[in-house]
């Protein structure tokens, strides 16, 4: 058996066991349902890499119109102006609301793009080996899974503004088409991250042993 780490290690799969993804109970490899919680058992999530890539692609595709179309349609005294994601953030900067502008940029640009990059990088690393240690990649994965849902903030802002600012002729705000695209992009990317099986990172070390730094 190839050694994956400094100490000799054996995985549940190598020991002929499968651990329930749901409750953690161990069962002999090949069991179909967990005896404790009745969840279906898989040693590795089935078709993980296909699912990850499919959801990721869907997320990226939806992210494009999310940036091109307006997120908010604001009408003040009969004049309608359209605000895109980036436009809205720039407006906040000009208005002096630095902190909020940073939150908006983080939630709607930095986090989604970082998620696309990280997930793609993790997948490529599994197939071709990576310069990053498995440990570092694990941290990236956990961070991505944790942070992804926070991008939804922008969709909620649009919902709140549209509900609140309905003052007839003086001012009204309505959601633009980008809101839907953006929400879909966030959901698809979350599904992509959830389909990812971190065990793939550690399994791939057998095929691509960690490169020794000199």
């Amino acid at each position, binding site marked *: 058996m190839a050694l994956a780490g400094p100490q000799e290690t054996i995985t549940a799969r190598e020991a002929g066991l499968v651990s329930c993804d749901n409750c*953690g109970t161990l069962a002999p490899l090949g069991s179909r349902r967990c005896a*404790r919680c009745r969840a279906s058992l898989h040693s590795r999530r089935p078709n993980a890499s296909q699912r990850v890539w499919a959801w990721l692609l869907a997320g990226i595709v939806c992210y494009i119109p999310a940036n091109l179309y307006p997120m908010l349609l604001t009408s003040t005294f009969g004049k309608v102006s359209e605000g895109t994601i980036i436009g809205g953030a720039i407006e906040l900067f000009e208005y002096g609301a630095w902190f909020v502008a940073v939150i908006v940029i983080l939630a709607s640009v930095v986090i989604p793009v970082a998620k696309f990059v990280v997930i793609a990088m993790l997948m490529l690393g599994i197939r071709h080996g990576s310069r990053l240690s498995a440990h570092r990649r694990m941290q990236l994965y956990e961070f991505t899974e944790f942070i992804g849902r926070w991008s939804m903030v922008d969709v*909620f802002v649009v919902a709140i503004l549209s509900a*609140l600012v309905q003052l007839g002729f*003086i*001012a009204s705000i309505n*959601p633009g088409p980008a809101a839907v695209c953006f929400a879909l992009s966030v959901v698809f990317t979350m599904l992509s991250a959830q389909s990812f099986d971190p065990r793939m990172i550690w399994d791939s070390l057998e095929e691509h042993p960690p490169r020794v730094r000199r």
Partner: protein
Amino acid sequence: MHTRHPISENLDRLIACRACDLLLDRVIPPPGKVARCPRCHHVLLSNKRNVIDNTLAAAISTAILMVAAVLFPFIALEEAGLQRDASVMDAIGAFASGWSAPLTIAVAAFIVVIPVTRAVALIYALLPLRFGKAPANGAANSFRLAMALKPWSMAEIFIVGVAVALVKVTDLAAVSLGPSFWAFSALILVVVFENSTLCEWTIWRLLDPKKR
């Protein structure tokens, strides 16, 4: 179904890391501490006191706060004699017209339906255990549902959205915060508390009738 194989006796003393599949001896950490996988540092299990009590407390608080959050307006705006307040229902309904209609359902699910469903599922699964009774029928499925829905429960993200929206409209009109805003803010604390107290592994073991 409840036959005891010799191998399953032994398996009970082992645990596999969920993140890297490393097979390990199961060591229960000292009270209040967590056990981590030596290879990938993922949390294996924690030994928190009163897991059932604390998780139930979080679920019941969520249910109560959600009622307040939904019933009262969370934000009000006044300009040139026109007054408007928005409740969670208004925010959900904001996407109701036109082709963004499906987003209404999604927003309703993220900020109200899923958090409430999770709270109810947790109460259903854990309340009998709290009183020393056997788990209810379907308690396992109910707890599994609550865990699966966790990433999709976004009440705490909604409240950050309210804060951002607040800044965006302050130059437009006078804005004030309603009771629902504070209910949602309290929800954030409850979510943090739940995350820090809930050990899935422990609860699964308590839900297992054979192990009690």
